[in-house]
C-alpha cells in the first residue's frame, strides 16, 4: 500500500447522485490491485475532514493507466469529492484491504450480487472471473430506476437481473426476490451491499459458499486503529474490515 497523489481524469454523473470518477494510476501499481480492494481518499486539503473516505475500486484500465471509482453522494465528504474535475489532484491510500480470493476458488458459475453502492466492486471482479473462464450471473439491486447504473457493463459479462425496491426497473423487490423468481444458483457467490441485504443473501444462499464485502466506519483504513472491526462467527475475536477484509468468507463473520 502507498499514499498516492495523482490526477482525476474525469468525473461524470451516471445515475441519481451517483458519480463515476476516473483516476490516473501507473501501470506498476495497477498490476498489484485485486478485485474487491478499495482506496482511502482524503477529502479536501485542510483539517475540516480528518478522516479519509473508503471507496471500492470498480474497474482498472491497464492500457490507459486508469482506475474507475463509482460513488454516491451521501454526506459532506462525498459531496466534496464530487466537485473534483479533470486535472485536479486526489490523495489516495492505494490499494487497501484484501479483495476477493479469485485464485483460490474452484468454480464454473458464480453469482455476483450487489446492492446500490455495493455494485461497483463486483464489476472488476466479474471481468476477472470471465477472463478465468468462469460463467458470471449478476443480480443488481437499486432503490429505483433512477439509481441504476452499469447494467449494460455487467451485460458484457453474462446474464444480468436488476431489482428495484419500487419496481421502476427490473424485478419489483430485493435481490433475494430475483434469486427466488429466476431460480438462480451457482458454485459460489460474491456479494456486496448494505448489511440487511448481505444478511438476506447469506440466509437465502446458506448452502452455497460465498464471500461478502462489508462496510464499516473507518479511521486509519490500514489496520492500525481498530475502528472497523467485525466479530468472527464464534464471537471470540474480531477481524478488521480495512485490513482482513473488506471481503470475508460468509461463514467467517457475524453480520
Amino acid at each position, binding site marked *: *500500500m*502507498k*499514499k498516492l497523489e495523482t490526477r482525476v481524469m474525469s468525473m461524470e454523473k451516471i445515475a441519481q447522485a451517483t458519480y463515476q470518477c476516473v483516476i490516473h494510476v501507473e501501470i506498476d501499481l495497477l498490476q498489484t490491485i485485486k478485485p474487491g480492494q478499495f482506496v482511502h481518499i*482524503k477529502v479536501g486539503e485542510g*483539517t*475540516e*475532514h*480528518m*478522516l*479519509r473516505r473508503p471507496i471500492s475500486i470498480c474497474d482498472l484500465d491497464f492500457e490507459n493507466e486508469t482506475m474507475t471509482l463509482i460513488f454516491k453522494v451521501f454526506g459532506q*465528504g462525498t459531496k466534496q469529492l464530487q466537485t473534483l474535475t479533470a486535472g485536479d489532484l486526489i490523495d489516495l*491510500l492505494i490499494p487497501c484491504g484484501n479483495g476477493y480470493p479469485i485464485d483460490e476458488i474452484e468454480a464454473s458459475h458464480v453469482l455476483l450480487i450487489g446492492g446500490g453502492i455495493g455494485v461497483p466492486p463486483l464489476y472488476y471482479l466479474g471481468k476477472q472471473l470471465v477472463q478465468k473462464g468462469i460463467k458470471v450471473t449478476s443480480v443488481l439491486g437499486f432503490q429505483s430506476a433512477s439509481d441504476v447504473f452499469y447494467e449494460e457493463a455487467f451485460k458484457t459479462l453474462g446474464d444480468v437481473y436488476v431489482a428495484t425496491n419500487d419496481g421502476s426497473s427490473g424485478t419489483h423487490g430485493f435481490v433475494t426476490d430475483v434469486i427466488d423468481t429466476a431460480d438462480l444458483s451457482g458454485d459460489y457467490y460474491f456479494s456486496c451491499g448494505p448489511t440487511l441485504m448481505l444478511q438476506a443473501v447469506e440466509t437465502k444462499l446458506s448452502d452455497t459458499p460465498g464471500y461478502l464485502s462489508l462496510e*464499516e*466506519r*473507518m*479511521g*486509519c*483504513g*490500514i*489496520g*492500525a*486503529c*481498530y*475502528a*472497523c*472491526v*467485525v*466479530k468472527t462467527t464464534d464471537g471470540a*475475536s*474480531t477481524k478488521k474490515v480495512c*485490513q482482513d477484509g473488506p471481503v470475508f468468507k460468509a461463514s467467517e463473520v457475524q453480520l
Partner: protein
Amino acid sequence: MSLLKVDLPGLALKNPIMPASGCFSFGKEYSQFYDLSKLGSIMVKAATLHKRLGNDTPRVAETKSGMLNAIGLQNPGVETIIDQELPFLASFDVPVIANVAGSTIEEYEQVATALRRSNIAAIELNISCPNVKEGGVQFGTDPEIAAEVTRRVKQAANVPVYVKLSPNVTDIVAIAKAVEVAGADGLTMINTLTGMAIDLKKRRPLLNNGVGGLSGPAIKPVAIRMIYHVYEAVNIPIIGMGGIRSAEDVLEFLLAGASAVAVGTANFENPLVCSDIIDDLPFVLNKYGFDSVTDAIGKGHVDA
C-alpha cells in the same frame, strides 16, 4: 540531526516526534510507509491484563477538524502483546512506550508487572481513557486516586512512568501535581475530550458506545492551554499531544512547555505525517530562530 535530540527519563530521543497511543497499533501497518527507526519513540496501543474485544461498532465518527472514537481498549492482553507484538518493534532503532490501562488499581499493577519482562523504554499510564465503562476515567479525574494508581504502578514497573492526563477535569494542574508527588517521571497530555455526535437518521448517538473521545486539530487550543498551565506547576517533563499535524504545531507545543510530542489523529489523515514532521522540524525551528528543540521548550511563557 543533533538539534532535534531530547533526553527524557528512560527516553534518549533522537527527535521529539512519536505516534500517540491507539493511533499506531504496534507499528507494523505504518512500517509500510516509512522506516520506523526514524521516529523519536513509539507509543503503542493500550494493554490490559486480559484480552478485550472493545466496544461495538460504529467506533469512530468524523467531527469538524476532529474525530470521535470509542474503541474501548480492544487489545490482545499484555502477555500476547509482549510475545507477539513487541518483538516486531525490537527490529527498529526506536524506544517503545507501553500504554498501560485497567479497570482496577490491581489490573494496572499487574500489567506493569507483566511488562517487566519486555524491552520497553517507558510506561504511559493511561488513567484517562473515556471509553471504558467499568473504570478508566475515574482514575484520571480525582487527584488522590490518580496519585494512588501512580504510586502503585511506579512500584510495579522497572521503567520510568509517564502519567497520561485527562482533559475532562475542572483543574488539571491539581491532578498533575498530585501524580508528580506520587512519583511520576513525566506526564503525557492530553487524552481525548469526551464528546458525542448524534445520528439524525437513526435518532441515537452515532457511536454505539454513546460518548467517545474527541481528538484532532479541534482540541489543540485546549491541549496548549493545559500544557501551558501544567508546565508552570510541575518539574517533570511533559509529552504533549492533541491535534498536532505539522512542524509548526510541534513548535507551538514546545513553546507551551512540552519536551516532546505525540501525533495521533493526523496519522489517519496522512500516514506519513510523523515522518514529514521530522523532516520539516529543523526548518521550522530555524525559521523561528531556535537552535534546537531543547532551546524552544517552554519559551512561549511570558516570563521565559
